[in-house]
């Protein structure tokens, strides 16, 4: 037997071992040391699908559903994955033109070629159903479910607010949001965004080479569920809100109705308004532009942002302050001296109560003089500075001159103006020692430099109704999954003025509606003791018609402030009857004065706003 070259078996063994070693080293580099393969593989075969929670629902105070959701679908695209697309078929199925297709693709590519972006927004359930048979042919495209807001009754648009796509600053401020997410942009949708939005979940789907989802990766072990948004249980009375909006339909102005004992806002109307359904879905952009360019500014919530001279309703507060300071007594009388300030014809007031009833301008001129010039200092300017500071402090306790902390976005709110010494000392106004009562007396009757916000006026009605205090007006009673009570909004804010003095205001306001010579007999409702105060706020156009009221006189259930812009006639002509309708509707459930109701519902007293050129 020849067995030459046996040593060559060693060479052969070494070759085998070397190749094995090369393979193992190569595997070590690919699998253990290089993480890039894993990233690329996950990118290719796994598709994270965000699970959007349903946004929280919004109810009224009686459990009526105001806002809920409807499913829609976003068509998503990952440009890198689009392969062998039958563009004609795609355009036909989706219903777009070739040009549109190209612009949308370009936009998607600009955002990212690897990450998904929205190709077409908010496709309805029906449309999506029609596509489903074709969708698998379109590599790189898939559909993601979203929800849209639906409003059965087109009411309370300003309060509810609207939802829109996040912008860059939203994305920068909160990492929760991703491009294309929705966020509350105004109203309760904005102020309760964190309650309503819920928590997004994520499903990691395994997709195959044909772009079909073949299941949850690792049978869903890495998936997270979306947590539904929390609901809001508001203080609104949907029926009252709808009724009040109906009355204001062809007018400009606003109504705020509050339950005095709790500060719960029953209705908040700003006219003209809009149907909240207009700002939902794909039509939103177009409607938004239209509403935004309307000269009547239907998207503004006048109840919060409108700053008006209060007019005569301010006299109620003035009287309370003067009484508390002791500069007048309940029985103080002043002659109606029209040389001081203009007035209508009426007998001189012999008491505070009569003065409120008759809304005597010279009377409150005198009252305000006694508040401002208390004689504490010989120097008249210094004395006025002292008096104004005291008055200003009182006014803040009435909730004026500041944004009331209602649970709506602060941005959509005004504070109104209660001038203080700094205001007048400013060189651009009068300057230091250049003003005294004689320069600022217009404030006495709610004109001059004083402005208020309608919500503050309704709050004033609450303060009188409560005989001296208010609860922060608010719109949400309970929220979230556990129906947490909105405790911070039920705190009492005292004016520090004796209830006895407020009793005088209550009687005065009762007489306004019920007494001989009262200015608001049109607010009289059979069998309901309404208390109110009219105002006529002068401004550049026709006067605003103003009325604040509450009812019943004892244990008031509702306080209402009504503003009708540029309506010819005083507070008694338009605002008072409208307030009475709201009060009757709320207390009685229905309005018995049908003809009266029809008359004011159909009236359109507001002077047209001239279009700005």
């Amino acid at each position, binding site marked *: 037997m020849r067995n030459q070259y046996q040593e060559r078996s060693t060479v052969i*063994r070494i070759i085998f071992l070397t190749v094995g070693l090369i393979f193992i080293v190569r*595997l070590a580099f690919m699998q253990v040391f290089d993480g890039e393969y894993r990233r*690329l593989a*996950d990118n*290719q075969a796994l598709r994270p699908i965000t699970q959007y929670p349903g946004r929280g629902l919004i109810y009224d105070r009686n459990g009526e559903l105001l806002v809920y959701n409807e499913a829609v679908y976003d068509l998503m695209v990952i440009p890198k994955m689009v392969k062998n697309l039958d563009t004609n078929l795609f355009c036909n199925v989706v219903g777009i033109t070739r040009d549109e297709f190209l612009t949308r693709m370009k936009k998607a590519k600009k955002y990212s070629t690897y990450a998904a972006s929205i190709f077409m927004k908010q496709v309805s359930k029906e449309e999506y159903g029609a596509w489903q048979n074709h969708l698998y042919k379109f590599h790189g495209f898939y559909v993601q479910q979203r929800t849209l807001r639906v409003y059965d009754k087109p009411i309370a648009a300003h309060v509810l607010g609207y939802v829109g796509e996040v912008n860059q600053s939203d994305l920068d401020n909160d990492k929760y949001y991703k491009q294309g997410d929705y966020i509350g942009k105004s109203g309760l949708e904005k102020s309760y965004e964190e309650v309503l939005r819920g928590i997004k979940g994520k499903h990691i789907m395994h997709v195959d*080479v044909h772009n079909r989802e073949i299941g949850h990766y690792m049978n869903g072990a890495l998936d997270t569920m979306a947590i539904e948004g929390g609901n809001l249980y508001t203080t609104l009375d949907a029926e009252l809100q709808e009724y009040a909006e109906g009355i204001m339909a062809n007018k400009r102005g606003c109504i705020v109705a509050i339950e005095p004992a709790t500060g719960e806002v029953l209705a908040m109307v700003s006219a003209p308004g809009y149907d909240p359904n207009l700002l939902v879905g794909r039509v939103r952009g177009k409607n938004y532009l239209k509403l935004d360019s309307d000269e009547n500014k239907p998207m503004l919530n006048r109840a919060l942002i409108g700053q008006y001279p209060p007019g005569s309703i301010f006299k109620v507060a003035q009287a309370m302050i003067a009484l508390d300071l002791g500069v007048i007594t309940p029985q103080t009388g002043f002659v109606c001296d029209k040389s001081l300030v203009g007035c209508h014809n009426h007998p001189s007031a012999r008491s505070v109560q009569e003065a409120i009833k008759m809304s005597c301008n010279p009377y409150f001129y005198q009252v305000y003089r006694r508040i401002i010039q208390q004689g504490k200092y010989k120097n008249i300017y210094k004395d006025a500075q002292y008096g104004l500071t005291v008055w200003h402090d009182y006014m803040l306790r009435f909730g004026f001159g500041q944004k009331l902390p209602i649970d709506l976005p602060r941005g959509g709110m005004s504070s109104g103006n209660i001038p203080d010494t700094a205001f007048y000392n400013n060189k651009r106004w009068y300057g230091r020692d250049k003003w005294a009562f004689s320069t600022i007396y217009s404030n006495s009757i709610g004109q001059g430099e004083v402005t208020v916000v309608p919500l503050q006026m309704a709050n004033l009605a609450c303060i009188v109704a409560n005989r001296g205090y208010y609860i922060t007006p608010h719109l949400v009673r309970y929220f979230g999954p556990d129906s947490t009570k909105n405790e911070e909004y039920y705190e009492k804010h005292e004016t520090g003025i004796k209830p006895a003095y407020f009793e005088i205001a209550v009687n005065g306001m009762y007489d306004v509606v019920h007494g001989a010579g009262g200015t608001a007999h049109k607010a009289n409702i059979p069998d309901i003791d309404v208390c109110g105060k009219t105002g006529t706020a002068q401004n550049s156009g026709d006067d605003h018609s103003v009325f604040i009221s509450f009812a019943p006189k004892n244990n008031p259930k509702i306080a209402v402030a009504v503003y009708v812009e540029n309506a010819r006639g005083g507070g008694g002509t338009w605002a008072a009857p409208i307030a009475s309708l709201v009060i009757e509707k709320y207390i009685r459930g229905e309005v018995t004065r049908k003809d009266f109701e029809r008359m004011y519902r159909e009236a359109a007293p507001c002077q047209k706003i001239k279009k700005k050129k």
Partner: protein
Amino acid sequence: MQTKIDWVTVLLYAVILIFGWLNIYAACYDEAHAAVFDFSTLHGKEMMWIGASLVIALIITLIDPHIFSSTAYLIYFAVIGLLILTLFIGDTTNGGTSWIKIGSFKFQASEFAKFATALALAKYMSTLDLDYKQIRTKIIAWAIILFPAGIIILQHDTGSALVFASFLLPLYREGMSAKILVIGLVAVVLFVLALLMEKIWVIAIIGGLALIALFYLFVWLNKRTMKHYIWVTALFLICTAYVFSVDLAFEKVLQPHQRERIDVLLGKADKETSKTGTGYNVYQSKLAIGSGGLIGKGFLNGTITKADFVPEQETDFIFCTVGEEWGFVGSTLLILAYIALLLRLVRLAERQYSKFSRFYGYSVAGILFIHILINIGMVLGLLPVIGIPLPFFSYGGSSLMAFTILLFIFLRQDQERTNLI
């Protein structure tokens, strides 16, 4: 005297076979057809092939081992006949004509040509008093190898033809000049360098090596005969000519898809071709394997292989499933199993008393080695794409049965080695 069959080899064979079947099961897994014996699925069919292979293996262990050498030429020519028949009646798929279709049955003669050639070559090389140095001997030996390889090339199955290069291994063991191996290695290295670098640099390197060789000859060995200088100069000129002819060979001899595969491998192809074009398979294969990590994604949890991203993943690219689902640990164990099998075969071959058996044993090791080298090298992106199966692992009846026959004929001879002298 009959000894026991070599259980180490049988055990390695069984381990690889079972692991292979598990990976085929994973590669074509879908929940609707999860049953193991579902013969409408690939894993079900593979189960059937495994059964058939075991029966064949059993039969081989029962027959008289003398038959293999006495019928070697008969088997060889029978298979050659089948190969030629395939050329005429074969089914053409993917540009190749390597399958004979009988009903729903497909049969690949080229798989069986491997062991048939091994038998015939072993038979010839063990002829008594054969003089290896004679030109005639060399011509006949190479004819035995190249005849079937040539027909297979005509079937457009270059990969299978390449396998016949594995006979260099037993030939080397039996005394073939090592120069051929060295020349072959140099040719491959120069080919790659010529494609990757500027020609002038390649020649500079060769020239540098030539100068070192001359210096070595001159200073140390003190061999200052003309003959040596002529040799070095001639080699330098031949290498230079070869380098310049590489482009021509690359353009004219190789087919476009082969050129692209080499470009992809050398990183010369553009991104598109490397990822979605010709390089798609290898790119996906590397993704699957690379993403497996240290311990893999787990059985049936591969994201790439389970989602059909890798074409041919049950056959030529089956290693992807191992890499992805079993990770570095599983892949390394499989490679170690193969290396252990090869080393075991060398050991068995060396203990043979008959030259026929030893030569055949090395042929088996060589054939298995070249399959493993090319297949795993391909899926790891180290070698160009050449479609040949991973032995005992890839899906396919013909290849599994042919490899089983190949291996067990040797095991049977080993078992009876004392009777075969």
